[in-house]
């Protein structure tokens, strides 16, 4: 009796854990966030994990990543999860204003992966991301390639945050999309 009771308890514990499975189905997994300016207002575009060719993007006007995340959760995307966020793209024009502040916020949050990619981009790259679901993978591959060629380029939250902490200039990837996606590096000078 005792020998049967123990495995039964274990099985019950394991199976009752499956009760949470519906949360995975309904959860909105964000894998990419773009920050741009539209009509003089900062906009955070959340790209949801999708199987289809066309990406599912939700644009939230907000003053900071923190506010955008809160608004997205409250008004636009219920059960939003940022634990799988792989890429943060900042439009070149807004990067000076938001990069340090948003990376600073991200560094305090437990659920963000410290090794997720960060890059600057132009308007065309964001347009391309909104049209083509494979663009993100391409951008990440290009960033990895750039990092292997130029290891001094800071490509993730961790290294960008540490570079800001040292208060010295550093390089980050810059993605441009005229005819095709191209990656180069751009120097960032922290404001003292």
């Amino acid at each position, binding site marked *: 009796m005792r020998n049967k009771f123990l495995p039964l308890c274990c099985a019950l514990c394991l199976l009752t854990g499956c009760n949470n499975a519906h949360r995975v189905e309904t959860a909105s997994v964000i894998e990419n966030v773009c920050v741009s300016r539209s009509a003089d207002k900062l906009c955070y575009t959340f790209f949801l994990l999708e199987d289809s060719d066309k990406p599912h993007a939700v644009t939230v006007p907000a003053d900071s990543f923190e506010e955008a995340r809160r608004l997205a959760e409250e008004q636009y995307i219920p059960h939003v999860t940022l634990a799988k966020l792989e890429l943060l793209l900042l439009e070149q024009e807004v990067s000076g204003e938001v990069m340090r502040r948003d990376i600073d916020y991200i560094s305090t949050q437990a659920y963000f992966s410290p090794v997720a990619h960060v890059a600057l981009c132009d308007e065309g790259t964001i347009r391309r991301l909104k049209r083509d679901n494979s663009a993100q993978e391409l951008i990440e591959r290009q960033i990895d390639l750039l990092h292997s060629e130029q290891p001094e380029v800071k490509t993730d939250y961790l290294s960008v*945050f540490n570079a800001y902490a040292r208060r010295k200039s550093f390089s980050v990837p810059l993605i441009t999309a005229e005819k095709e996606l191209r990656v180069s590096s751009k120097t960032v000078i922290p404001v003292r």
Partner: protein
Amino acid sequence: MNREVPFSSKRMLLTLTLCACAVILLQNHELSQRLSFPLTLGAMAAGLAVCFLFFIPSVLLKSRHNTDALTLLRSRAKPVRALTAAICGASFLYIAVYFLLPYTEMFCKKYYPDASPCLIAFLLLGCCVYAAVKGVNVITRFGIFLFVLAMTTNLLLFGGCVSSLDFQNGGAFLSGKPQDFLQDALYFATPCFIAALFACLCGSAKQFRVRHVTIALLMTGVKYALVLFFIVYAVGAYAARQEYRTFVLSRVAHFGSFSGIESFYMALSTMSVFMILSLLLCGVTKSVGKPGSLPLTAALTGGIFVLHWLAEQFPFIKECFTCPPVLIGFSFLTAVVLPAVLLIQKRRQHA
């Protein structure tokens, strides 16, 4: 009720090493940010040297008389036994809550925010009751399995962080204040609780050699040094922004697109804390003279759970239970005072 089955001394010290490593796995903001890496290593060496000193009385007892403090006390008068049981009980219950609190907090804050700390504590303590009833021999056998898991996790942890190494993160070679050094040394002396466990449980260990203790502390030191090195040079200033900065290492570790070995890290922390709690329960039941007694183990586990619950409810109680000097004080009583008194008595008897 289990009988005291003899077990290998090497296996016991390996188990105690893994228990000592839990200290660095659960490290939160206890270590000073201002102290440079070489000075932190110095503080670590000082802390572990204190731990070695804590081992001396029980090592002498074991090597000269092949026994431990609690086994020797069995032939003493009832009031003496009651006093010893009270000291061991208070010490080990304090140490149990000291480790259970940061573990449940880390689990809920970093790994599964929806979970209740008390529920996690309840489930873990349930497993500890089973292990404690089975006895030290079975727990040390489990230590071999845990050693394999620890090796795998460490390889993934350190191997995955190599690509993030940046030696510009280090800062000045020698910087920090004496009080920072003292604070760190005090924290690194907390593994002395393994000396208390050794003093109470080493009676049945076979083929004991003093070098086993030295190797155990050296292994602990190497593990600490590696963790500190990677925190400073791979995570850098980012670590200071997060709670449980050693845990951040597991999130930074990556091999290409595969990143984050939090599950391995949590598994290792869970099993290390599980072993600490089980061995502590074994120690208390042995001090009462009923090793392996299920009702007594269950009652003690209930006590640990209540103390954990109280600490979760009242912050001032939590502060009392997360104080390294108190842990060192209790460990001193059990690991140094108790065996030293018995050693002196034995010497007088022989004289």
